[in-house]
């Protein structure tokens, strides 16, 4: 036995049973396995396509919600940047008093911008906005109060209530309105959206695991002859599992590619009306796609899911010696 072992030129089974395969050879074997997996997938195009479509659609849903969320978040970001207070002056106060308050507020660190809207300005704005210019000009007295439009930086949002209280305490001020309330609401909606995406990702990840696992189970069953032969001629479990793991990886990855393509097509389809709608709110808003980072996560994540599904299937269905 010794003699025959020394005759061997190839990496031999050592006494420890470990294979000594060079990294290059190991890579080559994996490459062959991956190529073989792809060939097998495309040798049954209809079956493969249907499975991939199911995986793709399962992955599409969370991707879609993610895109929706990131588009809504644009508004969130805008509003957070400009926390807003509107303060209305008492009728019986003079422009001079107003301007001195504006001057003192402009030196306040907590405040980004102070816009003063005089009663005349308010009247003009209202007339423009309402189209009731003629009616308004016939009024004897201007019913609109002068006001302050105060913008806070995003970092200063915690100051917003203190500032509002200070302003109400000022005797020049009649009424203070804080826009923070619905800021928080949008934040909450976005947070809820994030949670929903997470739950959906978890549920649909399970679905992908199941779909891939089931496909691999069928393939293992179809190849039971081969597995039996491999087992008898001394293939290790890892060696027998390898093609199935690659197959799972390919399923997951290609499913991810299909989800990505479907999403891109959908975005293309809604691009025009969606851009028009968003443009209505301001030129800075536009339709946001998946972005390369999220795209990469989608593809890597789906490949990983496929691999995991195959792994679970292999551990359950590949025969034990």
């Amino acid at each position: 036995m010794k003699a025959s072992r020394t005759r061997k030129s190839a990496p031999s089974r050592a006494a420890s049973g470990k294979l000594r395969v060079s990294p290059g050879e190991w890579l080559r074997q994996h490459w062959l396995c991956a190529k073989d997996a792809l060939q097998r997938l495309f040798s049954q195009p209809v079956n493969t396509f249907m499975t991939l479509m199911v995986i793709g659609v399962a992955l599409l849903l969370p991707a879609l919600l993610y895109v929706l969320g990131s588009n809504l978040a644009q508004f969130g970001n805008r509003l957070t940047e400009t926390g807003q207070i509107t303060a209305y002056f008492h009728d019986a106060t003079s422009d001079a008093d107003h301007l001195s308050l504006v001057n003192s507020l402009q030196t306040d660190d907590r405040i980004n911008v102070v816009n003063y809207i005089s009663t005349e300005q308010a009247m003009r704005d209202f007339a423009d906005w309402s189209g009731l210019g003629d009616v308004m000009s016939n009024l004897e007295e201007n019913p609109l109060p002068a006001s302050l439009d105060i913008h806070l930086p995003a970092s200063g949002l915690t100051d917003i209530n203190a500032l509002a209280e200070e302003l109400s305490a000022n005797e020049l001020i009649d009424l203070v309105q804080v826009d923070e309330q619905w800021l928080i609401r949008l934040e909450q909606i976005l947070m809820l959206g994030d949670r929903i995406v997470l739950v959906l990702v978890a549920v649909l990840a399970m679905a992908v695991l199941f779909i891939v696992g089931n496909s691999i189970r069928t393939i293992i069953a179809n190849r039971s002859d081969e597995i039996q032969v491999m087992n008898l001629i001394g293939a290790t479990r890892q060696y027998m599992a390898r093609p199935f793991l690659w197959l799972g990886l390919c399923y997951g990855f290609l499913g991810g590619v299909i989800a990505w393509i479907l999403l891109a097509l959908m975005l293309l389809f809604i691009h025009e009306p969606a851009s028009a709608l968003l443009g209505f709110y301001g030129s800075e808003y536009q339709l946001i796609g998946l972005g390369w980072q999220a795209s990469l996560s989608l593809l890597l994540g789906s490949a990983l899911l496929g691999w995991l599904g195959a792994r679970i299937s292999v551990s359950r269905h590949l025969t034990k010696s």
Partner: protein
Amino acid sequence: MIRFDEVSQRYPGGHEALKQVSFELERGEMAFLTGRSGAGKSTLLKCIMRTESLSQGQILVSGRNIQRISDKQIPFYRRRIGVVFQDHQLLYDRSVYENVALPLRIDGYREADAARRVRAALDKVGLLSKEKMNPIALSGGEQQRVGIARAVVNRPQILLADEPTGNLDPELAADIMKLFEQFNQIGVSMLIASHDLALITRLRHRMLTLDNGRLIRDEQHPSRQGAGSS
């Protein structure tokens, strides 16, 4: 090389397929395993491959108690044994070449070394010209020879064969046996299960006869044996 000590084997259903079988196959020896259908020939070979475990006794291969080999080590143990099956067990989704190369791929051979060995093995069984064909396109006898090439490509010290001539005509069967004798001459130990008494009694090798799980006869000179086994 292979030693059975009071080996009994019971299938999960409760059927006792081997009953206290003891024998020893020397290194480089060639022996036939015979007996009527259901006698336990396949089971005995499976026990050597350790696809079936024993209920009693022990099997030593190269002095090593194979029941003690861990599950992780089993594949490496099996690589030292070549197996030929009655139904070839070839894979029809790949070429003759790839079928024969399978044990080498599993063993992590480099492509160039593998190619040399595969060609040598195919040459030995006379099928070098058909390496690119799909085994489905070969005759039964040719397929069996591909199976033999696969069994010997890794140069095992032990070759087991289960009904290797089962559905071949007598002439082809004799050819296959001649091939086995050639491997035996270069030192491979062989155990061949066959119920083709007419064929194996003509060959001058040891013959082990199983009957209902018991080893009822162990004869060194088959030429002396008459036909009627119980």
